[in-house]
């Protein structure tokens, strides 16, 4: 299992190109670089995995997570409370994931004019029997994107309700609703399948 330690990339300056000619960089660049590298080391893997749970595609999840880091880098000098950077990244990743899902959803509707639910599992899968986690994840995929986000934030990242609300950009009440409905739907799906 690969953990965060797998990402021991050598330190790279945040802006290796340096400031524009004739422009003096403001103080604190090296400290800023170190903080960004630490953020990448501590958060990147978990964020990719979170995005994978939401969009179901590792490559897309990496792209979304890198987008979030690029945006943070470009806004770094405006980020005054560094402790909030992880929360910013979580929110940016979920926004990116949501945007990708919407795009995919609209594309599906317009291109394929698909009006039915995603194809059911193949006969051989049922015959062979899927692993427990695959059944749960398949049920997770059937949730709405908001419910899926809530479930992933709570049960994968173990976030508090406040942290979930901040990441999802919704109220605590909405978090409870999405989580409750998501879990209820998961329970229904899992009850219908052989365990």
């Amino acid at each position: 299992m690969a953990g965060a330690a797998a990402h021991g990339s050598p330190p790279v300056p945040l802006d290796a190109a340096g400031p524009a000619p004739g422009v003096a960089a403001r103080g604190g660049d090296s400290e800023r670089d170190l903080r960004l590298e630490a953020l990448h080391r501590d958060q990147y893997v978990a964020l990719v995995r979170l995005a994978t749970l939401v969009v179901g595609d590792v490559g897309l999840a990496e792209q979304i997570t890198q987008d979030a880091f690029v945006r943070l880098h470009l806004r770094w000098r405006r980020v005054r409370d560094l402790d909030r950077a992880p929360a910013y990244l979580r929110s940016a990743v979920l926004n990116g994931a949501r945007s990708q899902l919407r795009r995919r959803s609209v594309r599906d509707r317009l291109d394929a004019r698909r009006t039915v639910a995603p194809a059911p599992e193949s006969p051989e899968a049922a015959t062979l029997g899927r692993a427990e986690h695959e059944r749960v994840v398949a049920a997770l995929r059937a949730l709405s994107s908001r419910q899926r986000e809530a479930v992933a934030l709570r049960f994968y990242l173990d976030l508090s309700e406040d942290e979930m609300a901040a990441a999802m950009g919704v109220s605590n009440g909405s978090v409870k609703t999405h989580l409750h409905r998501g879990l209820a739907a998961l329970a229904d799906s899992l009850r219908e399948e052989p365990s």
Partner: protein
Amino acid sequence: MSDRPDPVEDRVRTALHAEVDAVTPDGGSLPAIHRRVRTVRRRRRALALAGTAVAAVAAALLVPLGRDGGSDVSTGPDRATTTMSAPAPTAGAADAAVWPDPTAGELFDAPEDAVASFAAALLGVDDPPVAATRRLDPDRVEVDLLDRTESGVPRATVASTVSVGRLDGEHWFVTAARSDDVRVDAPTPGATASSVLRVVGEGRGFEATIVAALHARTAPAPVLAEQATTAGTAAPAPFSVDLAVPADRAGVAVLVVRDAPGAEASVPHATVLPVLLAPPASPAPGPATPSPTVTTGRDGADFALGAEPLWPFRTFEDAEAWRATAAEGHQPWHLDAATTAQMFTRSFLGFTEIDEVTSQDVRADEAWIGVGSTIDGAATPAPPVTAAVVHLVRFGPGPDSPWEVVGTRDTVLTLDTPAYGAAVGSPTTVGGTITGVDESVHVRVLQVSSPTPLGESCCTPAGGEGTPWSTTVSWTGATDPALTIVASTGGHVQQVESFAITGIPGPG
């Protein structure tokens, strides 16, 4: 029933970890991120150094979202039907956007994305069934949201039609929604709402109920005010409802008038439009106060402001004319320094992204109001960043005199040349100092009586620690007693992150 805890949570937790704990991202992600950051910064530098060529690009990108444009750029017909009289400016194209907020948050490259986000945020519907997008012209489309049954199956009938426009030439914004079942006659799009917003129209809905709600335009579009009223059921019937405008809100908000949901899966039949909030000063002038009849100075017409009258009044007589009608409740925001500073920034200067008051120092006849904005995309509430501290003075001798903007208190970006109050003509050198990296200074010359800049200069590359910057600006058409020279910079987080102004006497 069993008292045992539902095992679903444990199963979910275990399954999620089993699913993705083995995911190993590409080890080259950090260098890739750095490369992308460098690419973006190089592009920004190239843009800044492109000089006049960039000015045209910047005008094309910025002006459609701002009130003030270059004289060579059309911002389209004025849509604003406001209750304000001159010198309040008309609303700009940025005010036409219902969703998303052009100045903050996520922007959309596809109209369908904008519609989906709009439906979720303002109609409370995730993934509504939609018909094919109708393209009216390259920059305008319409999307029909379809009805659906209680079980969620789409119907062929249209619930609401959403209008979407490419307002900045790049991103798509919902500009309105309409439904045959909910017609709104008042307010009109872009109308100004003061203390009470009266919503009048005709409609029909489940159990004859129509709901009018005022939402903030920024995500997650919280409800600012909401009222239900009765209309028709089978046939439309007139309705009228009053919404209380929050006293602490200013700027664009979104009015959603919809039928009451008959089922959880229903798609609202809604008419949606933008309105401009301009809450009254607090406390409002007392109605029992005798209405003054003077239209000239109370102590003679020789009141000396002691500074350049930049906005909103051109002269003391203009200020006194307003004061004579203030007791009738006409534009009471003139008595509120913070609102005046905000409107100066957003409406006169056109910096619509700067939408928060960050500090207030209000004294009897002088005030300093910090204006700024919160970091775009911040996940948790972050302290807003101050773009400038606006200096105001009372334009008259008493506490019932309106506030007048006379300058700014500058730090990150200063505008020292020409000196405040210096009698200079066109062209003139404009300069100051700046602290920052990859900055690009945009200078404009404005006057109250002109809706567009008299002159401008863009985009002067600058940066460093208190490093001097300088440019030359020319202008024509000055008629007012005072002119505002404004320098602004941005482009890192939002288009305008810092600004400074100075005042010079005009010919009027």
